């Protein structure tokens, strides 16, 4: 069941990244494109670019029937979904199966199970893996307060129907539990028309740590070590690294083995990530499992030397894993920066524009997975992530130094990016010492905005007027007599 032609049902940097590995493996490739999309690196790599229609570009990439049809029409025997879009869509997997096309990923049953956060959590808990203590009112309303008390303090009350932090209340003392429950219920009714609640253990200054796993679907599962992803804005990661600076060797083995155990429990096939919330006291709890490749997978590739997409393709072709656990090292340190078109000084508002000049950093230990080309255009049709800058160093300090150099050398002109913001994070003393949590960016927001250096105003003003061809041309046409007057102003 070897793969001879692969359709990548995705776009941007991840499509380019998957296509490159397929080419190394000698597999023919195809990728999708919506007519409104500008040129991107993936279009240059794929043997074939297939146009798909849709009322919006995103709708096209979510159109299961159309994409399955493309796969059949072009004779692709496998589809790689990338991340996002249909990568965790069980219906897509089922449709491909019916069409006789291999899905590069887990079975639809596993996607279904892990896609349902409540079921996934119950499954993991039943098998003895750590989940954060919690109490769901619906399970037995009569005993809810009692069960909430058993969760321990501090705890967090959330509306069952809620989202976005609305109606959430932290309770630190037993004496206020019942009144806070009543307040939260009223707020839930007011905001969501639904007063049902649940309670979970509140973790102060948590870290987000996840573990890369890979299974062959035949019972063999290995992990590729952890990634620390605590640097988040708007609940989205923007800097990831491995190893996590938080973990001792014993904790590292513990969390990685736990993740592999969870994947083993579902007889996992393909690449997946088990996400944990990690408390300051070293305890960690299962959050969820992502049944696909993650955006941040390259940091794992940098320290292990493995090509995770190559492993995915091996497994999809029925060739199994290429390595046993003992063969998977964790060498040096790797950091990923997500370069986004956004204004970090204005609440991360997405930016648009033309890419007037692009020059990517290069050199030892530097990898750029990019979704843009020089002369391209950044629109709001898709996610604002333009590119990923991944560096490797012998240790964390070297990785940080290389990341800063590369971020500073990354020239993207014509659209606002978060490069300076990412560089400021890398330079923050707390980041340098590894003392971060998921609240880091919010807590340190003021430290992360640089003061304006007044000397820059002169430099920028001079460069702007001197590079203004029309202005300089006009000046050259000024009669010599005026120029000789020295300070010509009119």
């Amino acid at each position, binding site marked *: 069941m070897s793969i001879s032609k692969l359709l990548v049902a995705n776009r941007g940097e991840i499509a380019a990244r998957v296509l490159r590995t397929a080419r190394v493996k000698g597999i023919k490739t195809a990728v999708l494109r919506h007519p409104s999309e500008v040129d991107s690196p993936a279009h240059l790599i794929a043997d074939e670019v297939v146009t798909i229609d849709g009322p919006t570009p995103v709708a096209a990439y979510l159109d299961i029937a159309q994409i399955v049809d493309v796969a059949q029409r072009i004779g692709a025997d496998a589809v790689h979904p990338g991340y996002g879009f249909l990568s965790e869509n069980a219906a897509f997997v089922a449709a491909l199966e019916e069409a006789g096309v291999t899905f590069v990923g887990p079975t639809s049953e596993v996607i279904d199970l892990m896609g349902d956060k409540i079921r996934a959590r119950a499954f993991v808990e039943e098998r003895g893996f750590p989940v954060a203590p919690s109490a769901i009112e619906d399970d037995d309303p009569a005993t809810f307060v009692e069960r909430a008390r058993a969760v321990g303090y501090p705890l967090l009350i959330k509306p069952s129907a809620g989202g976005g932090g609305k109606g959430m209340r932290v309770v630190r003392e037993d004496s206020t539990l019942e009144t806070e429950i009543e307040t939260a219920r009223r707020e839930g009714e007011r905001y969501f028309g639904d007063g049902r609640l649940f309670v979970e253990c509140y973790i102060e200054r948590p870290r987000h740590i996840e573990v890369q796993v890979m299974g062959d679907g035949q019972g063999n599962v290995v992990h590729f070590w952890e990634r620390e992803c605590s640097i988040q804005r708007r609940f989205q990661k923007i800097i990831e690294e491995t190893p996590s600076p938080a973990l001792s060797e014993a904790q590292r083995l513990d969390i990685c083995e736990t993740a592999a155990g969870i994947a083993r429990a579902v007889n996992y096939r393909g690449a997946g990530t088990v996400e944990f919330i990690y408390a300051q006291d070293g305890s960690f709890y299962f959050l969820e499992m992502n049944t696909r490749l993650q955006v941040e997978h390259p940091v794992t590739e940098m320290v292990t030397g493995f090509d995770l997409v190559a492993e995915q393709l091996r497994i999809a072709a029925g060739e199994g894993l290429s390595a046993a656990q003992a063969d998977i090292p964790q060498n040096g340190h790797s950091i990923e920066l997500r370069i986004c078109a956004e204004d970090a000084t204005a609440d991360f508002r997405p930016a648009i524009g033309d890419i007037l000049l692009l020059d990517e950093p290069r050199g030892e230990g530097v990898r750029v997975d990019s979704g843009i080309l020089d002369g391209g255009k950044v629109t709001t049709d898709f996610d604002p992530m333009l590119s990923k800058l991944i560096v490797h160093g012998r240790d964390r300090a070297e990785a940080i130094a290389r990341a800063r150099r590369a971020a500073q050398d990354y020239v993207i002109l014509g659209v606002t990016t978060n490069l300076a913001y990412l560089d400021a994070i890398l330079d923050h003393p707390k980041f340098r010492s590894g003392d971060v949590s998921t609240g880091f960016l919010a807590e340190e927001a003021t430290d992360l905005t640089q003061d304006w250096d007044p000397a820059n*105003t002169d430099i920028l003003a001079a460069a702007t007027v001197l590079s203004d061809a029309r202005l300089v041309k006009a000046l050259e046409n000024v009669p010599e007599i005026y*120029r000789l007057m020295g300070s010509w102003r009119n």
Partner: protein
Amino acid sequence: MRRILEVDGEDVPVWLASTREGHVLHMGEREIPCSLEQAAGKGAYTLELSETRIPMRIAVSESATFIHFNGRAYEIGRTDPAEALDKAGSGASRDQMLAPMPGVVVSVSVAPGDAVKEGDALLVIESMKLETTLKAPRDGLVAEVPFAAGDSFGGKDVLLRLEPQEETE
């Protein structure tokens, strides 16, 4: 040769002059000799300013200049005051006329309540040593003239407001 730059959110009026020795940038009262040479690579330049040589990458769009130097990218808004003044009459709406940049009112030809016809001269302003006559963008009644002759105004200040137009039909 004047420009109004927007640097770090502030309007910075500048002009560039040419002397026997080269270009001089005028910012406020300061005169800064400077020059820009092309350097290696796409969009690469070296700026020489007060004896320092600063390597940079520059890309220019219609209304802004993008500059990467010392490891960071900056966007500088760029307005030609001559063009901006001409467009003053076509400000935010057809009801009000906005100042494109700071300046001084030279003279005012109308008062609140006056009926004006499209194209009538309303007031004369001076910004950056350029005088411009603002003309009525449409027929209408003058509602407000916030500044008198001799008054200074800031960028984006309302210089004149017409009565809102009745929706006909």
